[in-house]
C-alpha cells in the first residue's frame, strides 16, 4: 500500500481528522446541488450524482453557484450530514464561510492537484498543520 504526504493550506479546523475520500473533478454547488437532509448529491449531470458526502473527506476543485451555499453547509453540519472535511484545489468564499461557521475542516492549495492525486476510496489523514496523508486504496 502506497502512502503519499502532501502539504496544504489549512483554513478551518484544529484537530486531526481521518476518513475515506470522495473525489470529483467538477465544482460543487451546495445550494440546489446537495440535499442537506441526506447529504446526497442531487445535481443533474454531476458525476457524483446519487453519492453521499456524509462523513467523507470530500475532494473537489472549488465551489460554484449561489452564496446561499454557505447556509446549506451549515445546515448539513446541524443535520449531521456534512462531510468530515473538505479538500479543495483552491477554495472560494462560499465554501470557506460555510466551513468556518460549521467548523468543518477545510484545506486547499496542496502541492499537487488533490482531485487528480486522490481517488475515491483512498484513506485520508489531515493534520492540524495542513499536512495531508493519502493511503492509496490499491
Amino acid at each position, binding site marked *: 500500500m502506497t502512502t503519499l504526504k502532501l502539504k496544504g493550506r489549512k483554513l478551518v479546523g484544529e484537530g486531526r481528522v481521518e476518513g475515506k475520500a470522495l473525489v470529483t473533478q467538477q465544482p460543487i454547488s451546495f445550494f440546489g446541488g446537495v440535499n442537506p437532509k441526506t447529504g446526497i448529491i442531487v445535481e443533474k449531470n454531476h458525476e457524483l450524482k446519487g453519492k453521499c458526502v456524509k462523513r467523507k473527506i470530500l475532494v473537489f476543485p472549488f465551489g460554484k453557484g449561489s452564496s446561499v451555499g454557505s*447556509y446549506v453547509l*451549515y*445546515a448539513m453540519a446541524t443535520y449531521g450530514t456534512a462531510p468530515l472535511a473538505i479538500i479543495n484545489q483552491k477554495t472560494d*468564499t*462560499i465554501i*470557506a*464561510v460555510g*466551513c*468556518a*461557521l460549521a467548523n468543518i475542516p477545510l484545506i486547499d492549495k496542496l502541492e499537487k492537484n488533490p482531485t487528480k492525486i486522490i481517488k475515491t476510496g483512498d484513506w485520508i489523514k489531515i493534520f492540524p498543520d495542513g499536512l495531508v496523508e493519502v493511503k492509496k486504496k490499491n
Partner: protein
Amino acid sequence: MYLTREEEKMLDGEYGESYSKCMRLLVTVGEMFEAKRMVKVKSCHVSGVSYKNIDEPGLKLLKSFFEEGVRVRVKSTLNPMGMDREKWKLIGLNKNFALKQLEILKIFGGMGFNLTCSCIPYLVGNKPKTGDHVAWAESSATIYANSVLGAKTNRESGLSALASALTGRTPLYGYHLEENRKPTIHVKVEYKPSNLLEIGALGYFIGKNFPESIPYFSGLDWLSMDGLKVLGSGMASSGAIALYHVKNLTPEAAKFSSKELKEAEKFKVGLEEIKKTIQDLSEENSQPDAVFLGCPHYSLNQIRDVMLYMKKRRVKAKRKLWIFTSKKVYEEAKKIGYVNLIEKFGGLILNDTCMVVSPIENLGINSIYTDSCKAAHYMAGNFKVTLKSLTQCLEAVFS
C-alpha cells in the same frame, strides 16, 4: 493576519460565542485572500433573509445569535424577504411559511437591523459615500455600491455580511484596495440600447463572456440611475463582476490614465449581442400567466412609467401583473397616487419581497414575462420565462 486587541477579544470569545463565530469566519476569509488586517466598515447589507433560502438551520442560527444578545455595530439593511407583510395571504402563500418569515424578521429587528427589506438599499436609507469601506451582499447592490457610489466592498455572502454587521469589520483585500479597482477590459458600446431590458442584456452579455473582469464602458454616459442599476445587475448575475466604470459618468472613471486604459483588453458590443442574449434567456411563450417586474426592485420612476403606460387599462382577469419594490418606495408612490392608479386596474405591488426569494413556484403560475435578465436567470428552473420590454410586458396583460 494582524488583529487589533478588540478583534482578538471578539475572536477569543470574550464577548460570547456568536461574536467569536463571526470573527472566526472573517479571519478565515481574510487568510484565504491573504489580507493583512481587518478594516472597519461604515455599513452592511445582508442577504439570506427569506425563509425559503436559509431554511430551519439558518433560522436557528440567527436565533442563537439573537438569544446571546448580539447587536449590529454599524448601519445594516436587509435584502428582500420571502413575502409581503400584508399581502402574502392574498397571493396564496401558506401560513406556516409566513410565521417563520415573521420570526426571522423579528430576530433581525432585535439585532438592530433596519427592517426595510430591499435589494436597492441605496435608495432607502443606506447610501455609502465615495471611498467608504462597506460589506455588502446581494450582487446587484454590491456592484452598485462599488461602481456608482464609489464605495468599497467585496462580493460578500449573506453570512459574511452578517458577520461584518455584528463585528463592524471586514478583511482588507480585493476591492477594498485601490490597486484592485482598475479596469481590465474596455467595452465600446456601439449601439444605444432603447430600453432597460436591452441595458440589462448588455450587462448580462458582458458578465457571461468576461465573468471576472472590471469593465470600463464608453458610450454609456447617458445612463440614468435605473440604467446603471440594471446594467450592473445583469453583469453580476451572469458573472462574478462586482465593479465597473462608465466613462464621463461613474465617480472613479476619470482616475484612470489613457495608458491604463490602453493596457485593458478592447471589446466592441452592439445590437446583435444584445438581441442574442435576450433570445438565449427566453423561452417560446405567446401567452403569459403573469408579468413580474421589479428585479432589482423598481424605483419610483419605474412605477410611474408603469402607471403612465397602463393608461387606466385593466389587467385581464386571467393574467397577473406583479410589481416588486421596497416598502419605502411603495409609500412614496402611494402618496403621489401611482399605487392607486395601478392597483385599481388590477396590478399588484408587493413590498420588501421579490420573485426570486418568494416561494411562488406552487401557485399555479407557469409562464412569465419579465423585463429583467437577472430574474430570467434565476427563475428559469421553476417557470417558463420570456424576456420582453416593459411596454411589451404590459401589453400582454391587457389582452
